[in-house]
């Protein structure tokens, strides 16, 4: 029989709280984590607001915060969330388990480029007539100005190496970066490693911040961000007719996945069971999802099949729900195709209405919200839902949380570039 995967620990750092309890309390109340960008002077940018993590102090979570002194927020937030999750699972200093059987699988975004040094040097040495750079001059300047440690910490394998090294997790060590699907994908693939026997415990999740000049620039150029600067707290409005783009967020979510019998033997807390994982690609366009949600439909079906469930078994859907015109329409259409007549009966909400879009971390944080929703019997709302869109006509749990019991929840994450991930969690 296939091994089962329990969730035995959870940790988060988000714009609405630095613990799972704080986060879930805030999303049930329908709070917004969105505010003006303070991390850099965004005063002239097309979008000047985001959902930032506030008052974060890594020293509260680890004894050696200086280890991450040159690391980007992706690594720092991951360390804090990982510490919470390991402690929650009773694995922080647990010497009775075999730590070579504990791995790491994160969907962590890139570190932050040294914007000021990079752009200053490019500006100095760019030759507009030839549209080229004076390369030797740039190279000499960069060798002089770039900080080697900071450059190294931008490498994409550093975050999970810190986690493995610091928390002594000697098993398989992966990081995937599939844009907005990464956190969910990391959890799904980590669960598969446990099912296969590659590890007994996997620390899995996502971590990311793109609230920096180049990140906001990149998304602005793609017209992906809301520009509702005048009313930023209402800018993230998934499924609402007046939605105009997503709101950038930042944060980290980490779960401890554990082989069920391993968890039971050691008397670990079992918050939920990860029962289903689906992974597909749209194979359509680099920027747009398939107009009929082709990949998303198959993905949700795969996750349900994997969990051995029928659509009517699902009591709550945590949508990808980005608040972009295209995603929310296509996701709605995809849910209708998968759930048929049930589609109007299953409550759907988007945590991004409150947290913004945590990009690579989104899927992990949203899965944790699903676990809490099942355990507490409360489904968090989609806030800022005011004007119905005729093309988005499901039950989005508008504005107020709902007390309702469910056994199984589905969480969707769809990445820029076409990767689709669906996860199913079930009460244990």
């Amino acid at each position, binding site marked *: 029989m296939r091994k089962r995967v329990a969730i035995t620990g959870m940790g988060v750092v988000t714009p609405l709280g630095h613990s799972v309890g704080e986060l879930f309390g805030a999303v049930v109340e329908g709070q917004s984590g969105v505010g003006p960008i303070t991390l850099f*002077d*965004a005063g*002239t*940018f*097309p979008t000047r607001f985001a959902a930032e993590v506030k008052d974060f102090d890594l020293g509260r979570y680890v004894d050696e915060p200086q280890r991450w002194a040159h690391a980007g927020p992706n690594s720092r937030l991951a360390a804090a969330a990982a510490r919470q999750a390991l402690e929650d699972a009773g694995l922080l200093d647990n010497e009775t388990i075999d*730590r*070579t059987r504990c791995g790491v699988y994160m969907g962590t975004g*890139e570190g932050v*480029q040294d*914007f*000021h*040094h*990079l*752009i*200053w040097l490019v*500006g100095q040495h*760019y030759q*507009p007539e030839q*549209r080229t*750079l004076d*390369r030797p001059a740039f*190279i000499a300047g*960069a*060798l002089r*100005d*770039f900080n080697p*440690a900071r*450059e190294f910490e931008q*490498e*994409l*394998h550093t975050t*999970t*190496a810190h986690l493995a*090294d610091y928390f*002594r*997790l*000697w098993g*398989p*060590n*992966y990081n*995937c*970066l*599939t844009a907005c699907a990464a956190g969910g994908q990391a959890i799904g693939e980590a669960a*598969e490693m446990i099912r296969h026997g*590659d590890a007994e415990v996997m620390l899995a999740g996502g971590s990311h911040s793109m609230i920096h*000049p180049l990140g906001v*620039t990149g998304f602005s*150029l*793609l017209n992906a961000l809301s520009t509702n600067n005048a009313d930023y707290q209402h800018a993230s409005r998934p499924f609402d007719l007046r939605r105009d783009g997503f709101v950038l967020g930042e944060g980290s979510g980490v779960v401890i996945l554990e082989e069920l019998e391993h968890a039971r033997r050691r008397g670990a807390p079992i918050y939920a069971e990860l029962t289903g994982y689906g*992974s*597909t*690609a749209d*194979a359509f366009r*680099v*920027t747009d999802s398939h107009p009929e949600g082709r990949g998303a439909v198959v993905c949700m079906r*795969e996750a349900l099949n994997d969990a051995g469930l029928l659509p009517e078994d699902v009591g709550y859907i945590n949508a990808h729900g980005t608040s972009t015109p295209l995603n929310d329409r296509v996701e709605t259409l995809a849910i209708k195709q998968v759930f048929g007549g049930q589609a109007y009966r299953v409550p759907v909400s988007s945590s991004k209405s409150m947290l913004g879009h945590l990009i690579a971390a989104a899927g992990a944080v949203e899965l944790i919200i699903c676990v809490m929703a099942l355990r507490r019997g409360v489904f968090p709302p989609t806030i800022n839902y005011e004007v119905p869109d005729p093309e988005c006509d499901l039950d989005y749990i508008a504005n107020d949380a709902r007390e309702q019991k469910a056994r199984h929840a589905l969480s969707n994450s769809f990445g*820029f*570039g*076409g*990767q689709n991930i669906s996860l199913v969690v079930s009460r244990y």
Partner: protein
Amino acid sequence: MTSARRRAVLTGIGVLTPIGLDVPTFWDAFRNGQGGVRRIQAFDRSALSTRFGGEVLGFDSRNYLDKKERKRLNVMGRTIQFAVAGAQLALADSGVDKSRLDPARFGVEYGAATIPSELEELGPAARVCANCQPGTVHLANWGGAGIGCIPPMWMLNHVPNMLACHVSILHNAQGPNNTITQTDVAGLLALGEAYRTLIRDRADFFLVGGADTMISPINMVRQCLFRRLSRRNDAPERASRPFDRLRDGIIPGEGGGAVVLEEFDHARRRGGRIYAEVVGFGAAFGRSGEAASHGLVRAIRAALAEAGVGPEDIDHVNAQGYSAVDWDAWEAQGLSEVFGGCGRPVPVFAPKSYFGNLGAGSSIPELAASLLAFEHNLVPATLNYKEPDPACPVTVTRTPQPVSRPFFLKVSFTELGQCAAVVCRKL
């Protein structure tokens, strides 16, 4: 008729490397002992402390795409172009009729790394915010006039998952799609994950690849800053010397490749050529000097156990062999721990001696070298291996030698401790 147990076989190879842009040229270089490490030609290298590397020459991405697809190249940086070209070559090599593949059962998995911005694209915007304070820019000008000077799709040129995304779009691969970003081990981890996915019946056909480049001004700067690179600027062709006593650092490179990983019956039904079967995979984390045992040793033992073979059954080890002082010793000690007691010296072959470190593009072309070794019954020599180093207790291939056993082991790792091992079997 189908097998009771699903099996995964490698049926196509595509390579884009400093020693060849096609399989025959690539193999000839190994057979003839011709390396591809040279002085950098792509740009004025004079200000660098390491001025050579494994550069891919003569690569024209237009050769790999149909005319109607070529407009897509505008949003593909060099790394993405390597990925797309490698996939094209691997598919062609597999001989598969694409129209007969089930898109939902066709997966893509790539290893990729940080892809820094293309500097020229940022030039006009950077000039707008120039000021006279070194190291700071006028952010208000950037947010105002600057942003509009940047090509709209700029970000998509350097998001790592774009390698696998473009490949999936070009080939209508709607199955599982993932991008592993563990730098120098990324490609092998991707292969391991694709292998697991295929065995558990989520796909029948996979393109697995990796691509990377360090041969650009900003990447060379970054490598020079945080890595111990070889400084053998006076003799680049002798710089990459894994396990040799006179090695002095990593050789930066660029390139990549892809392999087709296919379910055995799927391959057999269509009469596809089978290079080898993937029979074991293991991954672990662990650096030397830790309480936990050597990560590479654990990864290798897991892969051997899954393959159901012992160290004595392995024809040769295809090593990571960075040509780095510390890491080669670390690797050799790990290999010696696994293979030391097996009664015969197991030959160790280090493909980086031919082209340096291709980063996330390394593992797949390196694996391809052993697949071709099996195909041609010849394990290549490791270049520049002249003086054994007592710190590296392994038997490195000095001359080409015939294959004597049906299994090989490919290992990769990062300098931080992510390790992977794959065992392949000749059918």
